[in-house]
């Protein structure tokens, strides 16, 4: 039993780009380029970044839904990458995932009863009446009721579908749940219900969360610690409170400045980043953020900064610090 439930070391995932008549490998998309971090037991860890930064890939690699190109992922001390299929199946109980798109993450031709009960059925945890009872319990936990049992996903709203997804994730009684943008496709009012539910469940079942999102306010609301990713690299990790008070990396500063303030009296300078989000297949040399950084120095173009601890467990990857 370690304090660090999940530890990732030098995780790399490259996706090959195939092209040409014979589908040769033309190049690689550097989705995740050697990142390291850890998640403590019982905490909610937030991973934030824009599109192409690799955050979704990280989540899937930890659960081994995608095979990492290289690197180590430790779950409770066990190296996940080296396990074979049978051992992996045993580990699957402990880690689950809630997906982003409520319209695509449920089998459209299966009833709710089957969707939520499937994990229990496949892994032979329960069957028959026992299964029915357990499925009903799970539905109650996420705020659904008995008459939802026999319906199909298309009869539900986005928020309800997400709840079904959460119920499915809880079926195997996991310790660790990866939440991949669970509320991005939901309306604001539904999102509020979902986030409150997730917080309640975390307390009640003592879960550890990896919360992935591009929405800073949501991440800041839900997480204890936050990591900011940019084009396959982590640029800053710190406690939520700290990073909110003081962002050290220029990219983090720009990100935080885009969050709208709903108080028209508070004026704030927005940092408008020039340039475009680079192509992960062809990342810039040195520090990946340097083309868009207004504070860059010549060193930034040549050497890639390493993630360093500034103090108080606040890590930044920037030459200026």
């Amino acid at each position, binding site marked *: 039993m370690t304090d660090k439930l999940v530890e990732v070391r030098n995780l790399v995932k490259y996706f090959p780009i195939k092209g040409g008549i014979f589908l040769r490998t033309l190049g690689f998309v550097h989705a995740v380029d050697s990142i390291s971090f850890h998640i403590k037991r019982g905490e909610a860890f937030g991973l934030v970044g824009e599109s192409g930064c690799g955050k979704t890939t990280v989540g899937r690699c930890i659960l081994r839904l995608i095979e990492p190109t290289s690197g180590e992922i430790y779950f409770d001390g066990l190296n996940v990458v080296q396990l074979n299929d049978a051992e992996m199946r045993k580990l699957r109980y402990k880690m*689950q995932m809630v997906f982003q*798109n409520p319209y*695509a993450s*449920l089998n459209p*031709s299966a009833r709710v009863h089957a969707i939520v009960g499937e*994990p229990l059925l496949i*892994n032979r945890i329960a069957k028959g009446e026992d299964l029915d009872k357990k499925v009903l319990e799970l539905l109650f936990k996420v705020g659904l009721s008995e008459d939802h049992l026999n319906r199909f996903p298309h009869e539900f709203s986005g928020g309800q579908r997400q709840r079904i997804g959460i119920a499915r994730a809880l079926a195997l009684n996991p310790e660790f749940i990866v939440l991949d943008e669970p509320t991005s496709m939901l309306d604001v009012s539904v999102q509020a219900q979902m986030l409150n539910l997730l917080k309640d469940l975390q307390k009640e079942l003592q879960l550890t969360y990896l919360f992935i999102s591009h929405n800073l306010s949501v991440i800041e609301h839900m997480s204890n610690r936050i990591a900011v990713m940019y084009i396959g690299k982590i640029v800053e990790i710190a406690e939520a409170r700290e990073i909110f008070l003081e962002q050290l990396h220029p990219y983090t500063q720009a990100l935080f400045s885009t969050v709208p303030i709903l108080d028209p009296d508070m004026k704030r300078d927005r940092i408008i980043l020039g340039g475009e989000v680079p192509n992960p297949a062809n990342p810039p040399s040195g520090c990946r953020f340097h083309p868009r950084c207004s504070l860059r120095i010549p060193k930034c173009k040549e050497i890639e900064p390493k993630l360093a601890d500034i103090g108080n467990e606040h890590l930044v990857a920037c030459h200026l610090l």
Partner: protein
Amino acid sequence: MRKIIRRIKWLEKARLGAFVKILENRMAILGIIILLAFAFSAVFADFISPYDPLHIDLEKMLEKPSTKHILGTDELGRDILSRIIYGTRISLMIGVISVIIGLLFGVPLGAVAGYCGGKIDNIFMGITDVLLSFPSLLLAIAIVAVLGTSLVNAMIAIGISQIPVFARLVRGSVLSLKGREFVEAAKGVGATNFRIIFSHILPNCLAPIIVQSTLLIASGIIAGAGLGFLGLGAQPPTPEWGAMLSRGRIYIRVAPHICFFPGLTIMLAVLGFNLLGDVLRDVLDPRLRMLKARI
């Protein structure tokens, strides 16, 4: 009628709301009526057929349609109407069984190819491409030539020629569903590949499979008639529409009705299945989106 509509509204609550739309489409109703007529005559052939289809009466050869023989008699004095009615059994059997063969082998082939990708996909699709490159009738003829001419062999041959069609179709559907999140979720809870293909992906491919099946029954009937015409399918004296057509060729100047009625029947059967297939296609796919129009 009211009662039926009320019943149908209830069915609409279940996913069978599709049927409501089928019945709202006049073409579909025509198609269904035609098909019901054929099904009825196939099942109750013994009861509704006025004469024994195999009964030869040389005194009544080549008689034009009359009150005694509604569709006339053929070159051996057999009643054409009776032969057509009994022929329904054979043609429908050919159509349905060939499609069943196509489904049984084509669907798993396509599903596995689409899901696994890579070499397996290439090999399976290579086989499919070879089969598809033959004109289907020619392929059927070749297979019958190998197996020998009989009704059963005709069905097998046509079935084989339909396998690649289903394989391609299913492969396409599987490819498009493979990347969806619910498949990932199933992997995440530990489902085996087999389960994913058969419990998760295939049930969502049913729509195009059903549509294609109805259309292929129609083409199976034509193929069967074609083989029969060439003498490669059902052997005489079995009443088969295509064979009847073929036999009647010689007499077309004297007694055109021997060719005309079997031909008309083939056309009607194919029409019925095509109409049904078309409407099913319209109804099964956008169904869910129309009912739950989001603004």
